[in-house]
């Protein structure tokens, strides 16, 4: 049993921390987020150069062959720096689907481009009505002999505005909400019949609604098995949930540190407000919340990297983690604002921005209440 990072992981962590320290202050971050594509291409090139984009990919595709712990290390530091560059969308979601389900040709054509920083991707899976149900899909890919014709609309596509290529989930059979009958297709974002509407989310992400009007795809654009995309989606999204949870832990730690520091310097009634016992106890609750969340994060990644771990245990660990990330995120985010007083509601401080990212992480792939019901169903069934 061992909770230490390997030397390699410690170096990776240090490298990201240094990048944030030297080149990603709050002004630079806001400039990246508010740019036309929602991030900085220059930063992305740096990520590629430093090898971060290769972390989760298999060595045979030019990747680093990283573990869940490796991805955790990256994400926690990206969280701590409030990095807006689309690591999750391009590398983990889009890249993850290809890595896990892509054909040899698809991998060859795309993964090295992702690693080189030359390809932006997105996964279009949400629909207006779907809420957190990954199987609730109305977009249809109708077979037409040689290939398929896709019609439908996807919303809140992360990195959807900047993506060069998309993977889209569509129904090839089955009824709406059925897990069976979902297939994934890889296509150029500029394909005929695709229209995008870009907009921003409060955490700075540039996302898009994407409509598919009679978009023609060939059979070799299918990612994974026909009708069997659901399992692939959930496998990848489970990994992404853990990754954004690591990001959340990085944010929580940062907010806690910032808040404790602020209360040491901010004076009211002629003493630092950090000397008030009621506030101290609340900051202890924030500290404990962060440590407990970190424990669930370690629990999840250790079980994912353990070849002998039971699949059900892994799922349970991931669900528990996401529930706590949501709950403690609300606690720490809310308390950080409150303890910063009126300064906390200004846009000038980064506190509000960290808070908003925590809120979007809670919402992403199912909020705490939703995941807790899945957790209950899993743990109480026999």
């Amino acid at each position, binding site marked *: 049993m061992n909770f230490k990072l390997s030397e390699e992981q410690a170096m990776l962590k240090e490298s990201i921390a240094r990048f944030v320290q030297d080149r990603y202050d709050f002004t630079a971050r806001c400039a990246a987020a508010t740019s036309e594509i929602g991030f900085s291409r220059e930063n992305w090139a740096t990520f590629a150069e430093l090898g971060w984009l290769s972390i989760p990919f298999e060595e045979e595709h030019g990747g680093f062959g990283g573990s869940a712990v490796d991805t955790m290390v990256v994400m926690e530091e990206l969280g701590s720096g409030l990095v807006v560059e689309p690591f999750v969308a391009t590398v983990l979601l889009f890249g993850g689907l290809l890595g896990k389900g892509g054909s040899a040709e698809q991998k060859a054509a795309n993964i090295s481009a992702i690693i080189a920083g030359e390809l932006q991707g997105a996964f279009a899976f*949400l629909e*207006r*009505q779907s*809420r*957190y*149900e990954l199987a*609730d899909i109305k977009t249809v890919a109708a077979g037409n002999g040689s290939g398929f014709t896709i019609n439908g609309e996807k*919303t*809140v596509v992360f990195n959807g505005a900047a993506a060069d290529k998309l993977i889209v989930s569509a129904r090839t059979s089955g009824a*709406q*909400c059925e897990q069976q009958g979902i297939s994934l297709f890889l296509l150029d974002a500029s394909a005929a019949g695709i229209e995008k*509407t*870009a*907009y*921003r*989310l*409060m*955490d700075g*992400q540039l996302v898009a*609604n994407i409509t598919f009007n009679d978009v023609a795809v060939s059979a070799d654009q299918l990612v994974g098995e026909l009708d069997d995309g659901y399992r692939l989606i959930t496998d990848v999204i489970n990994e992404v949930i853990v990754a954004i949870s690591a990001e959340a832990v990085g944010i929580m730690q940062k907010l806690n540190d910032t808040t404790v520091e602020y209360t040491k310097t901010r*004076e*009211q*009634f*002629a003493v630092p407000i950090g000397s*008030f016992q*009621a*506030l101290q106890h609340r900051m202890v609750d924030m500290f404990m919340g962060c440590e407990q969340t970190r424990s669930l994060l370690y629990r999840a990644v250790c079980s994912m990297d353990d070849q002998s771990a039971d699949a059900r245990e892994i799922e349970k660990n991931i669900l528990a983690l996401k529930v706590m990330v949501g709950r403690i995120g*609300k606690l720490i985010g*809310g308390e950080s*604002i*409150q303890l910063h*007083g*009126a300064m*906390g*509601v*200004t*846009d*000038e401080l980064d506190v*509000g921005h960290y*808070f*908003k990212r925590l*809120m*979007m992480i809670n*919402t*992403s792939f199912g*909020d705490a*209440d*939703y995941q*807790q*019901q899945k957790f209950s169903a899993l743990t109480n069934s026999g």
Partner: protein
Amino acid sequence: MDTNFSAEDLAFRDEVVAFLETAWTDEHEAHLRDPQAGMQAIIDWQKRLHARGWLAPGWPVEYGGTDWTTTQSFIFETERATAGAPDVPPFALKMVAPVIYTYGSDEQKQRFLPRILSSEDWWCQGYSEPGAGSDLASLKTKAELDGDEYVVNGAKIWTTYAQYADWIFCLVRTDSSGRKQAGITFLLIDMKSPGITVNPIETIDGVYSLNEVLFDNVRVPVENRIGEQDQGWTYAKALLAHERTAIAGVADSRRHLGEIRELARQEVSGGRALLEDPAFQARLSSVEIELMALEYTELRVLAAMAEGSGPGVESSLLKIKGTEVQQSVQQLRIDVAGYYCGVIAGESGDIGHSFGSEARRAYMYGRASTIYGGSNEVQKNITAKFVLGL
């Protein structure tokens, strides 16, 4: 003990409902969603209330008040919120006006009160200062008497709607020798005075309402001083409890909760209305029950006030619970919106649930409610000391 409405009360309610039906229109409602047009809607709404004689129910009748019973005030508030009409901005009507009619000179009453009622004068509040926060009395903005004028230097912050204001009422320091609550003077300052600069503050809700107001040798005629020099804290303090009472916002929270219930009825999750989701139901019920209690807590405070006792220290309870409930309601709305709570609705129009962007704005704006008007932590200190005797 009873909360029955008398026949007169029921008749009054009909009157209110009838008034609201014509006075608060769908057009107002639509404008309200737009921060810019919103201000015009509010001014128009104030004028309609004034025309009906209902703009300043809490004022003494001689200055334009209504002489309503506590029950009538309660009825009006309930129906107002149910109709979706906003509470009027408090700075002129509920904050400075009571100071003026209670402690001001006859000349000040005649000069300022009618222009507040007619919506000619817009007011903002100059209490908070950079660094002072909940420790209001530690303020540093200085006023020195020079002939028959005060010369004011310093800075006020978190000043809501300063960008629209004609006047600002300020607490300023005229003596630093004694304890910090002494030596404070209450001044009314024309916002057009030379030397005043208004700097906007960007806030997490993305809507411009807060400002920093800088005073650089601003000259204020001594006749704009309320009461005695150095006694301003007394005048301001008497009003703070009223501010806390008004802040509970029970009727508005009730309306918002109803809206959320409807949204959750329409929102579908896995083929089932979100409203049927047990976890959502539990959270909705918890908030509603707390709100049902708060409604009667407010009635109890109002009834005590009607009996002649001031709102007293129980007003802290209304402030704490009121803002907690408001934030719970805002959180529910965010959670109903799901992914769309993150949407920043821009020129793109309808890009998801239409309420997502509004939910976000209300939520972010609402973060301030537990901070301003004396933070909830300060309210707890007050309650511990004055109610529990600790």
